[in-house]
């Protein structure tokens, strides 16, 4: 595939590279410029609240991570080692919770918890745990599933009871996976934004939330920029440390090629599996059920008013909330459609270029992954303060929000497509060429057709990301152009009013849309999994 002519590679890569440069690199530089002024730095770093916020961000992330690991280990073990009826459903449910928009998770917990716990740190941590359970189950579970069971049998022949086997052998062996999962969960909870804004009390602020508050409420752009870069530096440090630590502790274990799952054999095992799987099901299903239920609860009792009168945001004659829920739905759908279109086009071009271009392709791949490492708030904030002067004053453009969403979605499209494209047998291209096709034609006929299905998966992922995106949109959306997540956040804040019930209605709709998209992705992907030779 490196025999493709250079002009083709350039033509493929030019779009993605330009897009990345304009919409990611340039805002990043602007952010740096805003932050690196003496006053901004000294003011922000000398303010006591800055360090209190940093401390809180770290503290709640650590507690959330530990709690998620502790809660998730038993379900990870059960789902990795045992086959039982409903297993795939449970795994699917856990995954669905993971891709749920943050505002929906916040709304679900708001609906679930009694008012006394609402808006406390514990509500936030609880939401974090449920969100990230899937990470522990999948990351740790996938290692556990392939651990040689004979090692545990060997320990048993040496006199180790079930408990001793678990603590002395199994735990140490899955430790690399636990560390990897913990790092991922820590990164997600460190940059937590939507959950904090919905579930946290007004004073609960992580660095992300404070960046938003400083920039949009207090107009302190410099201070917000300093905080954003502070967070970025922390993220880079954590990721580097974890990569180094993992490499040092990497050890070769002879993993099984096939899964070691089996049906529970003894009645003790049956009870154990039932207990853990049941508890896991409850933990993930309860918030969603509470969400749907609350959408029918109005201050005057149970009714479908919130559903039927969606769009009626009147508080007093002539006075409305200012956000029309129905309009928000339309805005979200429009944004999602455009964001998906952008992400799919850019993602397709980039994937083809990455796979065809060897080393340069890897650089492009890494570059396109950068927006994932940068928080959504930072991306939106950067775009807002960059594109505000003619001739680049794009703040009012209809396409700015979809572009922001596409930036975040492209990495997912690329990962899906590159994986499939790379598994195409290169001999096919050679075969086509021996039949007389030019390199370009051979490539087009044998490689490109494999792009369509992963692209469809990427499209579904991009759509669900766009629908649920909250961080970047908090900065980029204009009055009248609010999306569903923004409308949900506004509506849920009106405690004790029918407007809050409307917030739950919107959250339910968003949850349903996400679940449908996840199901589509799973359906599209299963034939892929078999084909890629896993």
């Amino acid at each position: 595939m490196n025999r493709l002519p250079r002009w083709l590679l350039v033509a493929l890569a030019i779009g993605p590279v330009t897009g990345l440069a304009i919409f990611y690199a340039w805002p990043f530089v602007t952010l740096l410029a805003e932050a690196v002024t003496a006053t901004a730095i000294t003011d922000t770093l000398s303010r006591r609240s800055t360090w209190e916020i940093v401390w809180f961000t770290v503290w709640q992330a650590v507690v959330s991570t530990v709690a998620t690991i502790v809660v998730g280990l038993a379900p990870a073990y059960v789902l990795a080692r045992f086959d039982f009826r409903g297993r795939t459903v449970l795994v699917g449910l856990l995954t669905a919770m993971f891709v749920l928009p943050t505002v929906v998770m916040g709304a679900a917990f708001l609906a679930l918890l009694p008012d006394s716990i609402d808006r406390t740190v514990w509500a936030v941590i609880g939401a974090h745990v449920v969100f990230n359970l899937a990470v522990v189950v999948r990351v740790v579970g996938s290692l556990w599933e392939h651990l040689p069971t004979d090692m545990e049998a060997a320990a048993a022949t040496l006199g180790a009871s079930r408990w001793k086997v678990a603590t002395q052998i199994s735990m140490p062996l899955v430790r690399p996976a636990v560390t990897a999962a913990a790092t991922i969960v820590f990164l997600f909870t460190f940059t937590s934004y939507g959950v904090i804004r919905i579930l946290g009390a007004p004073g609960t602020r992580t660095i992300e939330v404070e960046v938003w508050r400083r920039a949009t409420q207090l107009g302190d752009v410099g201070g917000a920029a300093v905080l954003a870069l502070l967070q970025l530096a922390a993220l880079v440090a954590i990721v580097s440390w974890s990569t180094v630590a993992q490499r040092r502790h990497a050890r070769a274990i002879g993993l099984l090629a096939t899964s070691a799952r089996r049906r529970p054999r003894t009645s003790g095992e049956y009870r154990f599996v039932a207990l853990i799987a049941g508890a896991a099901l409850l933990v993930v299903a309860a918030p969603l059920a509470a969400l749907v239920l609350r959408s029918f609860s109005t201050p005057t009792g149970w009714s479908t008013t919130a559903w039927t009168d969606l769009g009626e945001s009147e508080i007093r004659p002539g006075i409305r909330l200012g956000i029309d829920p129905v309009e928000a739905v339309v805005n979200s759908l429009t944004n999602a459609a455009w964001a998906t279109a952008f992400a799919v086009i850019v993602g397709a071009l980039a994937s083809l270029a990455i796979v065809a271009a060897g080393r340069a392709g890897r650089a492009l791949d890494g570059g396109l992954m950068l927006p994932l490492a940068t928080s959504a708030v930072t991306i939106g904030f950067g775009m807002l303060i960059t594109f505000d002067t003619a001739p680049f004053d794009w703040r009012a453009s209809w396409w700015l929000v979809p572009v922001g969403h596409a930036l975040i979605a492209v990495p997912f499209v690329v990962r899906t497509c590159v994986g499939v494209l790379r598994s195409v047998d290169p001999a096919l291209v050679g075969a086509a060429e021996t039949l007389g096709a030019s390199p370009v034609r051979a490539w087009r006929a044998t490689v490109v057709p494999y792009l369509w299905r992963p692209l469809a998966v990427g499209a579904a992922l991009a759509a669900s990301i766009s629908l649920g995106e909250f961080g970047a949109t908090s900065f980029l959306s204009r009055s009248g152009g609010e999306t569903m997540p923004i409308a949900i956040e506004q509506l849920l804040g009106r405690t004790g009013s029918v407007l809050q019930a409307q917030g739950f209605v919107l959250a339910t709709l968003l949850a349903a849309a996400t679940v449908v998209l996840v199901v589509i992705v799973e359906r599209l992907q299963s034939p892929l999994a078999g084909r890629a030779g896993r």
Partner: protein
Amino acid sequence: MNDHPGLDLEGVTVSFGQLRVLDDTSISVGASEVVALLGPSGSGKSTLLRVAAGIITPDAGRVLVHGVDVTARPTHLRGVGMVFQDNQLFPHLSVIENVAFGPKMAGVARSERTERATRWLRRVGLPGFDDRRVTDLSGGEAKRVALARTLAAEPAVVLLDEPLTGLDRELHDRLADELATILRDTHVTALLVTHDRDEATTIADRTVQLADL
């Protein structure tokens, strides 16, 4: 009921789905006797070992260790040690920690179990290997550690699953002699399965064909 010391498997039947792997199979190993079970690959001899160890539950049959019916007991309470074909050394523990694992599970104090482990390592010809990582060992060294580990736990019965399969010729022959010596010197009751007739005659007191059982 110690009138029949050693290992007895009586009427063991195991089916995996429709496939019947073992059908009413019985075998006896006397005290301090080393018996080799011969059979081609896939004939079910490893399965028989795993039934004895308690890793596989048979559809029918009994397992007796030194005359005690342990069929209902979990593996760790049977007093049965096993050397696996691929060793199954614990990669997160050092060599000495691997060998001392059995005594540790039995509650032996640290200094005593370290001393015991060191002795066993010397016995299998690996003095000074205490602090090595198991991932750094050669095939022969790993096999010896696996053997030391099983024996250090002082089990009533030792099971060996194709212990020398896969080693190169020279190593194979050398280890076969050493294995025979160690098993004899320690007076263990042992059942080993293999498909190599010469290996069986070198190591064991008595050879049995699975097909005859």
